[in-house]
């Protein structure tokens, strides 16, 4: 079962919810925690332990300068500007390459082969007895965000309970993470911004027919702005987290509130159970 934790915008407390949920559930179930926010992965900051590393690669062209006749066909074909044919050489920009393989197909002399280029790194660790953490990290300046997310997803076993920390926004990266999930927990805050972004991410989840539930973070007396929307759309609100300096301070220094506080642990465990139940309804 795969449960994504998402928020249209960043900074709503998605990471707080994710780490607490993972820790609480892992007290009784084997949990895989996947950091799919590969542009800015953060979950590993909350856990310790040795991680195993694996590179994520894509194929990029390699040109045999001995047989290349500088005909220019590869440069014309490439829509990404990753290959430029000049009078005396072929210039390559591996960072711009989308790895479609088209250049090697169009080359009339068979001078283009493909080599691996590193675009990201996977880290695998077991920070808690029944918690496995998989983090994807995109190389700075690379465009292969979805490739690295896919590499994270390839680490799952079908029988695992997986919690996926989704990247912010509703573009390719969020879609790559949400696709195929059984449930999506939407973390929001009771502000016009929060509601606006909640609406966007909810639409995306609907596109994939994924059932959703909402957590209102920094909850206070103005929650109604989000509550009205949820009632209207028939979305269950599964938890309210009040604004609390202590929570912010603990989170800010890399601690997990439900590790020290059994009350929070219990609440997050219940949240996890609710998610699993709602996912099963499908």
């Amino acid at each position, binding site marked *: 079962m795969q449960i994504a934790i998402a928020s249209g915008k960043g900074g709503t407390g998605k*990471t707080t919810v994710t780490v607490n949920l993972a820790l609480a559930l892992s007290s009784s179930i084997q949990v895989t925690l996947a950091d799919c926010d590969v542009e800015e992965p953060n979950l590993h900051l909350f856990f310790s332990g040795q991680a195993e590393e694996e590179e994520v690669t894509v194929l990029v062209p390699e040109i045999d300068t001995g047989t290349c006749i500088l005909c220019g066909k590869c440069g014309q074909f490439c829509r990404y500007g990753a290959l430029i044919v000049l009078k005396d050489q072929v210039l390559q920009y591996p960072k711009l390459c989308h790895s479609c393989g088209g250049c090697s197909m169009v080359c009339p002399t068979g001078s283009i082969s493909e080599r691996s280029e590193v675009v990201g790194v996977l880290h695998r660790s077991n920070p808690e007895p029944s918690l496995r953490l998989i983090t994807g990290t995109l190389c700075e300046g690379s465009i292969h965000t979805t490739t690295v997310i896919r590499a994270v997803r390839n680490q799952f076993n079908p029988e695992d309970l997986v919690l996926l920390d989704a990247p912010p926004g509703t573009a390719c990266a969020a*879609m790559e993470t949400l696709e195929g999930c059984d449930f999506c927990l939407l973390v929001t805050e009771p502000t016009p911004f929060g509601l606006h972004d909640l609406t966007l991410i909810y639409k995306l989840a609907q596109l994939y027919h994924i059932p959703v539930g909402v957590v209102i973070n920094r909850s206070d007396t103005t929650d109604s702005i989000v509550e009205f929307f949820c009632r209207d759309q028939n979305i269950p609100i599964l938890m309210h987290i009040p604004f609390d300096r202590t929570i912010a301070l603990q989170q800010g220094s890399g601690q997990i509130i439900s590790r020290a506080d059994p009350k929070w642990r219990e609440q997050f465990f219940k949240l996890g159970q609710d998610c699993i139940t709602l996912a099963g309804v499908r």
Partner: protein
Amino acid sequence: MIQIAVVSGKGGTGKTVVTGAIAALLPGKIVMADCDVDAANLGLLMRPETIVSEPFTGMDRAFIDPDRCTRCGCCVTNCRFHAISVLKDRVQVDPVKCEGCGVCEYVCLADAVKMVTHIGGAIRSAQTRFGPFIDGALNPGSGNSGLMVHQIRKKAREIAPDIPLVLIDGPPGIGCPLISAVTGCDLVILVAEPGSSGRHDIERLITVCRSLRCRMVMIINRADLVPDGTVLLRTIAKESDIPILCEIPLDPLVMKATRNREPFSLHEGPASIEIRNAVDYLAHELQLI
């Protein structure tokens, strides 16, 4: 024309709220460009009026002519993006997964594939009480946000050539949209928040901005929330030779103003004193006054 981008790496550091506060202090001198195209929010603060919307065309997408297609599956096996699938009666392209590379068009023996223009969203221009405003809305899952950022910036430069400053509300992350938003900017304002997550992100962001040769300054938001974190941010700024423009304290006024969809700098409080000083300094530096 001067271009300033406000960016944060991680979302939720208050980037949009800070952008709005700066914009409200420079009425008539700025064009606002909301380049956070996945979740455009600046409009909620700026309240744009008389919105003109134009279609946004992204990268071409593959289109398969069902009358010509023989369902041989050649395009399916050659597509590296797993964007094409053979159904019982036709071959289907997933417009989200298709990256427009053109391999399918090349390999098709029946000449059934064409690369066609794809409408991926809209670019909107409007007026606000502070100045012209541009933002974009991508259709969910359309991708190509980097290109949209580029087009929003272009529109912002064109809409009012006599206004001296374009203020960009940047996208989160360090990927393609962020690179499009800061490339060629005269100044990048990093909005950082103390806390371990914030630190990690800001370091990655600095690396990317530096590689694009951007001049940077930092604003520390909610500076008194995690005091140790603020000390650390100051150290990072110093090590990277980035001046700190101001430190905004946690101020209930900011939340209150934001809830009422108002830039907080128009109201009185500790946070607005900080941002006003910062904007005065900036305006002076950039010779806007």
